[in-house]
């Protein structure tokens, strides 16, 4: 009897010691089991967008898994840069995590928690992310954030117009130049291309310009961070970019002042036949609430290539999630980052159209596994598969340096003035001289 009791006790003790090792098994995407951070609350500041509202609606899943409460604060995009900057300046840990545009990331790097240590400790698989997305978030060889809202430039076009005219979607810019007169002749009120050369401080006229420059074999900044856009290749590419308007008459009447949103609205109203824009805009231009166009009328394809036979150069942008160095709950915040970027959620957020009663249409994903997933693509008209093709080719982010906004505005203003009839070479050279001074001062 006594021996039986001892055997039973030993068995129970062994089971009890085995149980924690089962409980120690990590949950989805490396989230720790056992709720070691239960009771903590993490605050995240993020841009106001349906994708993130849907994530907020799902946050209870994370709380149930970990016991960590999540409070989201949404900010309109126009105010986001200043709000996130003030989080860093305040340095009081009021926000544990921030979401921002990658092009501002270099100026936040000094107060963002590098994630390389967390990633290797918890064996997070970064291979599932397109290299261009990670490149956008790596500052001074340190990974400063994880992709959460990543976009690829695409070309949207009027399938119906191209079909009626017997034209194929342009594979190169020259194809579009050749198609332009045919489109104009058949549709006098439709511009062949929705151009946006406007310089409004958001530098959106630089995205297509960057495609031209990189496609031509040039670069925007050199290896030391100084302007390189006055090289012969880059200058020729810039002239060709501006000549879409000034020589080839591809653009609508608002081209010199339109920004991306204006061009998108004009496309939605049937004002242009082709629009180069982020892949998320496809759902906007086919949304019956906002657009006169239907899915039957709008097609998508990779950006036109600079030269025939070469892959198109494509710009990407990423709005990641990062952890503040001033956070009092860094580990809990990292648990949230692992959850919100997990591959299953990445897919679900692009498939499900109702999240806890909130209707949402989101076509933004961040991982290769989501970009190529059949269900994700079925829910999004296969646009993500097209984005994956572009990402595998010649995709890159805009420069990630602290002084980029000031340097970029010089280039953006110069391009805008060139589009209104100014001398391209003189304007870009002058912009480069002024940008040189900015870089010199910044690097001093």
């Amino acid at each position: 009897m006594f021996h039986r009791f001892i055997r039973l006790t030993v068995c129970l003790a062994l089971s009890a010691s085995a149980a924690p090792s089962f409980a120690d098994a990590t949950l989805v995407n490396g989230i720790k089991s056992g709720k070691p951070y239960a009771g903590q609350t993490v605050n995240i500041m993020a841009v106001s967008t349906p994708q993130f509202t849907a994530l907020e609606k799902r946050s209870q899943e994370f709380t149930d898994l970990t016991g960590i409460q999540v409070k989201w604060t949404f900010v309109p995009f126009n105010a986001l840069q200043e709000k996130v900057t003030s989080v860093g300046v305040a340095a009081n840990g009021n926000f544990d995590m921030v979401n921002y545009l990658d092009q501002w990331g270099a100026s936040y790097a000094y107060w963002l928690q590098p994630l390389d240590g967390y990633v290797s400790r918890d064996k997070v698989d970064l291979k599932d992310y397109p290299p261009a997305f990670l490149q956008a978030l790596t500052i001074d060889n340190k990974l400063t954030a994880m992709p959460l809202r990543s976009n690829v430039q695409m070309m949207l076009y009027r399938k119906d117009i191209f079909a009626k005219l017997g034209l194929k979607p342009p594979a190169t810019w020259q194809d579009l130049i050749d198609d332009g007169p045919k489109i104009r002749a058949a549709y006098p009120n439709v511009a062949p291309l929705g151009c946006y050369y406007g310089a409004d401080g958001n530098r959106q006229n630089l995205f297509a310009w960057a495609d031209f420059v990189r496609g031509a074999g040039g670069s925007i900044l050199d290896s030391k961070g100084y302007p390189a856009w006055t090289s012969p290749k880059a200058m020729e590419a810039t002239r060709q970019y501006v000549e879409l308007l000034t020589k080839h008459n591809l653009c609508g009447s608002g081209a010199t002042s339109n920004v991306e949103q204006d061009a998108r609205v004009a496309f939605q109203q049937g004002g242009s036949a082709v629009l180069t824009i982020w892949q998320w805009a496809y759902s906007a231009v086919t949304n019956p609430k906002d657009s006169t166009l239907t899915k039957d009328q709008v097609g998508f394809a990779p950006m036109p290539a600079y030269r025939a036979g070469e892959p198109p150069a494509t710009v990407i942008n990423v709005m990641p999630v990062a952890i503040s160095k001033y956070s009092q709950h860094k580990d809990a915040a990292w648990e949230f980052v692992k959850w919100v970027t997990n591959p299953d959620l990445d897919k679900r957020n692009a498939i499900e159209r109702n999240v806890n009663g909130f209707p949402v249409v989101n076509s933004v994903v961040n991982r290769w596994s989501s970009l190529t997933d059949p269900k994700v693509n079925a829910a999004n008209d296969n646009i993500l598969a097209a984005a994956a093709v572009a990402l595998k080719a010649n995709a890159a982010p805009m420069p990630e340096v602290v002084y980029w906004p000031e340097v970029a505005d010089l280039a953006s203003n110069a391009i805008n003035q060139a589009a209104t009839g100014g001398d391209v070479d003189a304007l870009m050279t002058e912009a480069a001289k002024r940008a040189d001074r900015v870089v010199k001062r910044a690097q001093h």
Partner: protein
Amino acid sequence: MSERFIKYAMVAPGLLIVLVTALYPLITTFYLSFRDWNLGRSNASSALWLPSDGISQIGYLFDNYSRALSDPSMWNSAWVTARFTVVSVILTVGFALAIAVLLFGKGSVRAVLRSMLILPFAMSPALIGALWRFMANADFGVAGAISRALHLKNVDILGNATAAFWLVLSSDVWHWTPYFALIFIGALASVPKESQEAAEIDGATPLKVFFSITLPQLWPVLSVAMVLKAIFAMKVFDQVVMITNGGPGQATQTLTHFIYFQGFKYLNMSYASAVGWLLVIPTMALTVLYVRLTQRGK
């Protein structure tokens, strides 16, 4: 409690608000203008000069100011601001006076129109800017639609430096003219009718009566209005952001917009502080003039 104490106690809350919201930022930005602070590198400013650097290096203390004075973008913004201020004052006061003369007097129609004058002034400048931008859009705005309907060449107002400048100016004039018209209507009521009637009896035409009798008597109010409008024009920001955001290029970038961009987009906080203090000089001069004009005769 003495009357003096009660007086100061009544003023104290308002004074405290002014100290916190005006004096504290003024002092802080003045201090920052002599420091080095880029928000993209640090959340604290650092010294441009320390006594240990020696007196020969003291010039570094004024680095931000010398940078501003040699910055062509700053001078461009200063010139845009100066042009904007002068033209805005002339047009606003001119239109306001004309409207005041037209709407001064009895009659139900005049009374209704006077009450409607408040509408443009009651609108938020940011909303006015958004409306103006949409109206001016060449593709889907009213301006584009009118051009197409009249078979005119569609001018991209927002893409043309001169047109964009006048567009922003027009929104500012539209916003402030009713306010000053109401002030001038009140001022017209204070002009003695006897001197006007005497001039009419002597054979003066209405135009002569206006320029020789009425206008001189309105001059104290007009001069205060011009100085006040100049101060408002120098501070214009909302419409610039909403309509053109300083563009095309920097054609409509006023000094306040330039300061905002330097501080909050380019994160050059100390440089923005220095330019802000350069703007304080003409603004302070106008404020002193305003106070002197309003105190005159008291």
